[in-house]
């Protein structure tokens, strides 16, 4: 246990060292080689821009707007994706019915839906949410489906022998918990892809605020240091979503998945 902590500690410091080195190299290149902040703002420029943005900017309003867009997309993807994946995984006829349609829609890039998002939902948070929904829903459907397909037959039969007979109970008590690691993976991938759609979903002016919207706006007024601030915010938020998920997955599944082929 203690060696494990030491090992992790060592790795952690190595990672931090890489970030510090990258910042130093970036600073040197920006300040002494390129010397033109429009092409490459230096870390110090970015830090100054960040302070200005916190004091005078609309950082909090942007975060709020983006989280609303993201929440709309993700919640819709969960509400539609999980039941759809369950139905496809549990019922072969439904799978045969709906699968070709899904396989046809899935390769269409989420951003290609932007024109119809605007026509259907107008320049509202809902149209940004819709694009994020398209990005997030397919990984959730596919992983829920494959999780249900992969439920070992012996679990279902053991459940039946113990009085869990009705489909509804078998799904709730056997198949869903057995498929949950896969469902969680789908949600994690869906969250990541949905987040990547966010900037594009906000580019077409669905609101006056939003992390993606501001990124574009500061580009238009040539404040590239502020653009970098918003880029970093996007990265850090995406990272924290992923970490929250990983923490949740580890906490709930690790204790029963150790020793299993995952």
């Amino acid at each position: 246990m203690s060696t494990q902590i030491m090992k992790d500690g060592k790795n952690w410091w190595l990672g931090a060292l890489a970030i510090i080195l990258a910042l130093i190299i970036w600073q040197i290149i920006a300040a002494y080689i390129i010397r033109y902040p429009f092409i490459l703002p230096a870390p110090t420029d970015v830090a100054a821009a960040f302070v200005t943005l916190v004091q005078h900017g609309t950082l909090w309003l942007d975060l709020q707007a983006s989280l609303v867009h993201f929440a709309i997309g993700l919640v819709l993807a969960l509400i539609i994706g999980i039941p759809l994946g369950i139905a496809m995984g549990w019922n072969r006829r439904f799978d045969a019915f709906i699968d070709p349609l899904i396989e046809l829609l899935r390769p269409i890039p989420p951003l290609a839906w932007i024109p119809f998002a605007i026509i259907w939902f107008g320049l509202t948070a809902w149209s940004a949410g819709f694009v994020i929904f398209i990005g997030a829903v397919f990984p959730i459907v596919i992983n829920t489906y494959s999780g249900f397909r992969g439920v070992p037959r012996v679990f279902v039969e053991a459940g039946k022998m113990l009085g869990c007979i009705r489909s509804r109970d078998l799904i709730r008590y056997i198949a869903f918990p057995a498929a949950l690691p896969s469902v969680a993976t789908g949600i994690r991938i869906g969250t990541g892809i949905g987040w990547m759609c966010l900037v594009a979903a906000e580019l077409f002016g669905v609101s006056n605020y939003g992390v993606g919207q501001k990124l574009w706006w500061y580009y238009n007024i040539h404040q590239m240091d502020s653009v970098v601030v918003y880029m970093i915010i996007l990265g850090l938020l995406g990272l924290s979503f992923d970490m929250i998920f990983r923490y949740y997955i580890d906490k709930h599944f690790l204790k029963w998945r150790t020793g299993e082929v995952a």
Partner: protein
Amino acid sequence: MGNLEIRDLNQSFTRDDGTQLVVLDHLNFDVRDKEFVCILGSSGCGKTTLLRLIAGLDEARAGSIILDGEEIRGPNPKVGFVFQEYSLFPWRNVIDNIAFGLEMKGITKEERYRSAEHYLGLVNLSQFKTSYPSELSGGMRQRIAVARALALEPVLLLMDEPFGALDAQTRNMLQKELLDIWDKTKKTIIFITHSVDEAVFLADRIIVLTPRPGRICQIFPVELKRPRDRTSVEFAQVRREVLDLIGQHCSIQ
């Protein structure tokens, strides 16, 4: 009660080319209440098929299976099943696995835990109450599976080579423990095995099946007194008789 009657049981599957593969052919036998019966046969002789029919997990082509006067037509709480594979639910800890059947019956948490703890004690694993299946050895998992099947208080316990994947020492220990449990709970047990040694050690009667199609070759009563000593001369004698029987009459023609 746990009287089982098997009448004219037939099972066959249709192959891809449309021909019939007969797996079980006109099986007839009875199992008396509180009896320990081993079904012995080589792999592919339809042992598991037979047990799944008795469990109600599959439907027979013809014939009937009657438990205490009632025909079996699907999974039934009066019948418990211990699978050959590890079948504990990995997302539930030991006590919640054992209590699963009681939970399905809508029994309160307090009451089902009390009952589950009793059966956990019966398989001598009380200290692993809150462990997860992945933390247990193969032998322990099968003991918990036995406790889980018993928790619903079935009259008939079906066991499909439950100790097949275990090493010889663990296997011998679990056989003894199973006989203890059988003695305490007085269930009717049908136990599938391909090990003559295991069958002679456990069974009141051994039903020997022939392979392809599965027919009853002979029903062999084991008259040895319990507890049985597998190193004794009498034990070796019975084992030889069963082996001879299989070699002469019950193997592939």
